[in-house]
């Protein structure tokens, strides 16, 4: 008698949210919890202090975990990140997405590498928040400068928060400065942590209903579909060549042998990996970018060239 095969769980995508003290991580977490878009988001806060989740969001508290009415949850990790991860990933009620809020002094590379190594997780993105009004002082700070520089350098997505507190010229100058510190990262400016959740967490509803998502928050999206197979190397070249204003891409496609693979682009970082067993291999793709420069026609023609139609 053969034992039934053990189902391999689908890895949970994990986003690392980094940024020095005062960059606005807590505000951003509240914003994401409020606009989770149907995702069951679990936030692990790798820092101490009271969990400052907006009171109106809280549905209950149990064993250090705050649960929200929309199915999301939030808990503090303290010094036992591995234990918290083990609890979060055990059992059937695994979240759709994990957001790890790093402490203000953390090097996000460590957390990103843990997410890469852990078979139950898929590293989705490293997003670093920067306080537009305070960043110049931080970078020059004798104690904090090197830490902040490392946090920025690790980012795939750089969120220039509190952008309303600086003049437009200064904002442009800061963007240039950040481009030097993190050449491959997508940069966006916002205030009060209002980042499009689809940008920080990837397109919502992808698994159940692939297709265009209303990105919102000043962002637009484009989606494409195709009939045939796409060699992964060609897909990688396509993703790498997309314009800078494409901040995020997620896609699924069949390789010439017919098995499905998943592809991602965050900032300018591209990742291609085998899709979970049972994935419909039909090729489809979603790209997100800021509404200003976003040009669907450019994406449409690049996609058409890739698919050979």
């Amino acid at each position: 008698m053969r034992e039934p095969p053990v189902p391999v769980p689908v890895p949970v995508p994990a986003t690392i949210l980094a940024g020095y003290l005062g960059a606005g991580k807590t505000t951003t977490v509240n914003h994401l919890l409020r606009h989770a878009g149907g995702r069951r988001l679990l936030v692990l806060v790798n820092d101490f202090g009271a969990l400052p989740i907006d009171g109106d969001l809280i549905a209950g508290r149990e064993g250090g975990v705050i649960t929200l009415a929309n199915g999301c949850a939030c808990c503090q990790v303290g010094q036992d990140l591995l234990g918290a991860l083990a609890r979060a990933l055990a059992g059937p009620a695994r979240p759709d997405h994990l957001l790890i809020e790093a402490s203000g002094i953390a090097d996000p590379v460590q957390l990103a590498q843990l997410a890469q190594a852990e078979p139950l997780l898929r590293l989705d993105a490293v997003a670093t928040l920067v306080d537009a009004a305070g960043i110049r002082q931080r970078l020059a700070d004798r104690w904090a400068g090197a830490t902040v520089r490392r946090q920025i350098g690790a980012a795939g997505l750089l969120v220039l928060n509190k952008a309303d507190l600086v003049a437009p010229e200064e904002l442009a100058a800061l963007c240039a400065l950040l481009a030097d510190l993190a050449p491959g990262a997508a940069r966006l400016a916002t205030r009060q942590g209002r980042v499009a959740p689809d940008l920080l967490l990837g397109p919502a509803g992808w698994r159940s209903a692939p297709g265009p998502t209303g990105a919102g928050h000043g962002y637009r999206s484009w989606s494409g579909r195709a009939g045939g197979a796409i060699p992964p190397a060609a897909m990688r070249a396509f993703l790498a060549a997309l314009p800078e204003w494409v901040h995020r891409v997620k896609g699924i496609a069949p390789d010439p042998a017919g098995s499905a693979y998943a592809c991602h682009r965050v900032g300018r970082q591209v990742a291609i990996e085998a899709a979970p067993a049972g994935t419909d291999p039909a090729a489809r793709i979603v790209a997100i970018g800021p509404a200003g420069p976003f040009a669907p026609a450019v994406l449409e023609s690049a996609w058409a060239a890739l698919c050979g139609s």
Partner: protein
Amino acid sequence: MPPITLFSARAILTMDRNCPRATHVAVREGKVLGVGTAESLAGWGPALLDTRFADKVLLPGFVEGHAHAMTGHLWKDTYLGHMERIDPAGRRWAGLGETEAVVARLSAATAARAGVLMGWGFDPLFVAGERLSRQHLDRVSATRPVIVLHSNGHLMTVNSAALALAAYDRTTCVPGVCKDAAGEPTGELHEMAAMGPVFMRLGLAGLQSGEPTYRAFAELARRAGVTTATDLGATIAAADVPALRAFIDRPDFPLRLAVMLMAHHRPPAEILAEALALAPLGSDKLRLGAVKIVLDGSIQGFTAQLRWPGYYRGTDHGLWNIAPEQLFELVAMLNAAGVQIHIHTNGDLATDLALEAFAAALARTPRFDHRHTLQHCQMADAAQFRRMKALGLACNLFANHLYYFGDKHYELTIGPDRAERMNACATALELGVPFAIHSDEPVTPIGPLFTAWCAVNRRTQEGRVLGAAQRISVEAALRAITLGAAHTLHMDDTIGSIEIGKWADFTVLDEDPTAVHPMALREIGIAGTVLAGQPTGALA
């Protein structure tokens, strides 16, 4: 009247200027009644003469000012280091110099316990033969996870059963999971990122800090001649104290312990409240109330925070364990409330930050005799020592590092200039900064006499004299491992010297350390300890 015991000895070195050397010490109610000769002590009345130490040399009980009791837990697993080490039961574990010897010792341990097999203290740099790999450890067990922790804490080597736990195989392509030429994992995992998924599945709970751990630690300390040791940075709450005192206060527990509260992962107000709650709960054998803060990482791990010009070779991974802003707040709050603070600073930039935080806190709330202490403080220069003096700080220097890591510091991490002035005992002495020297057990083995040897000779493993100008005299080093460490614990009024009114805590040596060649200091045999007048037993 309680009975008087009169110990005779070949010599008693007291660390008290009024009577530096003696032949007899009288003890009543656990305390020193008098020091001198049989004649000079006769006036206290009839005494029971105890001559068991008549051919030995007595010193004030050694004080280890920086160790970690969790080391007692480590010995439940198999020691695999390249240096000889003595376990809590007094068994000598030979250093392992080749890979096959590591496999053999682990294989011999398989029968002793079920489940995961763990080894610790391994360092491939000092091991000849093929580099330890999954294949070697598969010979230890094909079915049980086998984990070999490297001594630096950043690496481990595991067998195939352990790799399978984390589903690491040839398709794994992540930083830290090392591969061989054929594309298979070698079994070596680097950094917490790659080690974490294995640890997660072993369900390894946090290190135990219960009675067995503390008893094993106390045995290690006793065998090194230590009568008071610091558990420098424990997760402890007021509610834990009755359980601790239930065994520490017993006469058969051979050690005084200073347990300091680890100040991490909690808001400053909570740490302060816990420290204040702990302070009055101590006893004659358990000192509580001080707080430990860890600022940066380690020099050999390139995670210490260095000033210009940074590391000599290798990449700077300097990290803060607490945000600078939070340090200023925490130090100010604890200082204002009268709490004693010990700050771990390895790199000179971290020392600068600690000095700034203390200066700001003391400007806001000036205090006398606070005895805030810089722990390790390995790279401080003369100007930083002058600032310590001005702020009333003490320091506890990591003299053992000179021997164990000195060559690496000279050649690799910080280069000749700064390596030669590391752990600057002579500067501290000259400028009048109260100082101790320490082992940081389990980072290096506890043994104050060896630590004194390091401070006196400054010899590295390869035999280099690392900074002759910072050598100190045997007398100064002996003072550092007794009164010096007692000062940093606020206990110099009750321990650290043999004088009337203090606890009768002694270290019993086979030879007089001031009479042997300084290079022979570390070879002097420890014959035992006496705690509150009671010999703590044989060291078989």
